[in-house]
């Protein structure tokens, strides 16, 4: 009785917050099935906006581009960022390490607009044409600090004597890296990769500055179309994107709980 009472208000609060957060998204999804042309006056259920979306060759190309950029940039950033994190971990000089780490963190907190603008100046100065290349490079650049931040804690968590032990048993530096360090930090590398992937997917500000020659990504394209009034095609696209991310989250959750469940079971067996 008492417990129910104390749980009542927190539950209400939680529900209200979630409604506030999700209402706009569901509103948008709801009207993606509208037979009419606008986001008011629901005229009946229809998939015409979805059909329109899949027939929109330019839009499909942009979706493809966006995923290619996200995939490539996060892959390359993961490799560079992981090596960078290992480098920072191996830096014995405390001052030096803090300086590098701070330079890394500054990139994380500085506004996207400034990063985007500086990339634009940088690329034009070097005479690099704006387009796929410039977008990819800038995405790699802003993803590296994210990967470093995800990988470094795993490295710090690792017991240093593991490295001594591997060396003691005859491993050279390469073998220490591939057989001991990388397996240990795998989860951090994956987390960094997914973070970089999502950052790249939904980046608007940086891409807006460095894109050109007809090359565009989803967020920039949606923004430019929205200025002329959002077509319900965008709603359809957003609905699909929302579903994809939902599946990703659920999938991640299931893998995670499967792993931890297996571990817990094993722990019980040994005890």
């Amino acid at each position, binding site marked *: 009785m008492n417990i129910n009472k104390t749980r009542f208000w927190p539950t209400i609060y939680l529900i209200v917050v979630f409604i506030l957060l999700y209402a706009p998204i569901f509103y948008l999804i709801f009207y993606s099935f509208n037979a009419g042309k606008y986001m008011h006056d629901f005229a009946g259920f229809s998939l015409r906006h979805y059909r329109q979306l899949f027939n929109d060759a330019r839009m499909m190309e942009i979706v493809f581009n966006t995923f290619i950029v996200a995939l490539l940039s996060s892959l390359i950033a993961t490799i560079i960022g992981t090596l960078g994190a290992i480098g920072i971990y191996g830096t014995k000089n405390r001052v030096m390490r803090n300086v590098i780490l701070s330079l890394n963190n500054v990139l994380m907190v500085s506004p996207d607009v400034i990063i985007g603008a500086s990339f634009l100046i940088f690329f034009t100065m070097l005479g690099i044409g704006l387009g796929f290349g410039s977008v990819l490079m800038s995405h790699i650049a802003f993803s590296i600090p994210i990967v470093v931040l995800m990988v470094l804690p795993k490295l710090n968590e690792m017991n240093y004597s*593991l490295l001594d032990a591997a*060396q003691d048993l005859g491993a050279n530096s390469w*073998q220490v890296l591939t057989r*001991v360090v990388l397996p240990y930090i795998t989860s951090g590398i994956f987390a960094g990769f997914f973070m970089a992937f999502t950052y790249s997917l939904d980046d608007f500000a940086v891409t807006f500055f460095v894109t050109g020659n007809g090359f565009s990504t989803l967020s920039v394209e949606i923004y430019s179309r929205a200025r002329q009034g959002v077509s319900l095609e965008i709603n359809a696209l957003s609905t699909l994107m929302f579903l994809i991310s939902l599946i990703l989250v659920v999938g991640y959750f299931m893998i995670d709980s499967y792993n931890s469940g297996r571990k817990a079971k094993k722990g019980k067996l040994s005890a």
Partner: protein
Amino acid sequence: MKQPIIEFKNVVKSYGETQVLKGVDLEIEAGKFYTLLGPSGSGKTTILRLVAGFSSATSGDILFEGKRINDVPANKRRVNTVFQNYALFPNMNVFENVAFGMNLKGTSKAKIKTKVTQLLAMVRLAGYENRNIDELSGGQQQRVAIARALANDPEILLLDEPLSALDYKLRKEMQYELRELQKNLGITFIFVTHDQEEALAMSDWIFVMNEGKILQNGTPVDIYDEPINRFVAEFIGESNIVNGVMLEDYLVSFAGSTFENVDAGMRPNEQVDVVLRPEDLDLTTPENGKLVVTIDAQLFRGDYYEISAHDDNGNEWRIQATNSAQINTRQGLTFDPEDIHIMRFNESEDDFDARLDNYEEVGEMDE
């Protein structure tokens, strides 16, 4: 003398301004169980890391079978280590951990399998091949770590406080097992510990260290019976240390009386420290005692009573007795002349050995 397997020649190790090893000389012979004993920060683990090759000496030479190995990296040394926290690879199971070194060397699968099975049987973990590391208890992880280190057939096995994380009973058990293992394998063990009991029980030879220096080395019995100075006497076992004066050879005065003893070779009337081990002291009636003490307190330790008392000159005495004593009573304290051990102030180990040799020879000739 045989060629030592490991030799340190005036080895110094500094981190920035601080010297953690201050010119260490030591020689280690093949096939024995050595212990580096000292409090934390005494430099014993540093010596181990220098032998293993995890860090390099600031100056001085480290020799392996007579050849300088200062610049040989750890993965090329025929030395393996059992780490304090075991340092087992969490992403591998027991088999893969033990096979790690052999896999790197490219040993054949069949050979690896036989060897791992044999090693696990030796550390009494047969059948644990497919267990994960986090499924093992501390004692079992310890054994895996030992098997993994032995898999590379090292000439020397280094053990860095391997028993400190185990509970008392398991620790005692492992002491026997390690000693047994060393005897069966016949390879050199260098064992680091801060536990004097462990050191005395297991070692052929002990190096007592403090503040980056080796204070004394010798067999456990030598070090226990003839500590060179106050630090060693207090670190190795319980001891009563009182101020005394060496009146002449074989005659010492302390606690207000004069006693016959067995030490010699000092200046007449030299100020010295006098050591008496608690287990060498016996309680008796005040008339029969060489000293008279008042009992202050006693603790029951299971196999003996630990009694603390003070004499009329205010010296504290600690006594181990099989029978309990009455608190606040006056009792006599007896001991034999050979129980009295004299320590000179600031005597180096070499001088100490020389003096001992000298008067022991004279004593033998007298007889």
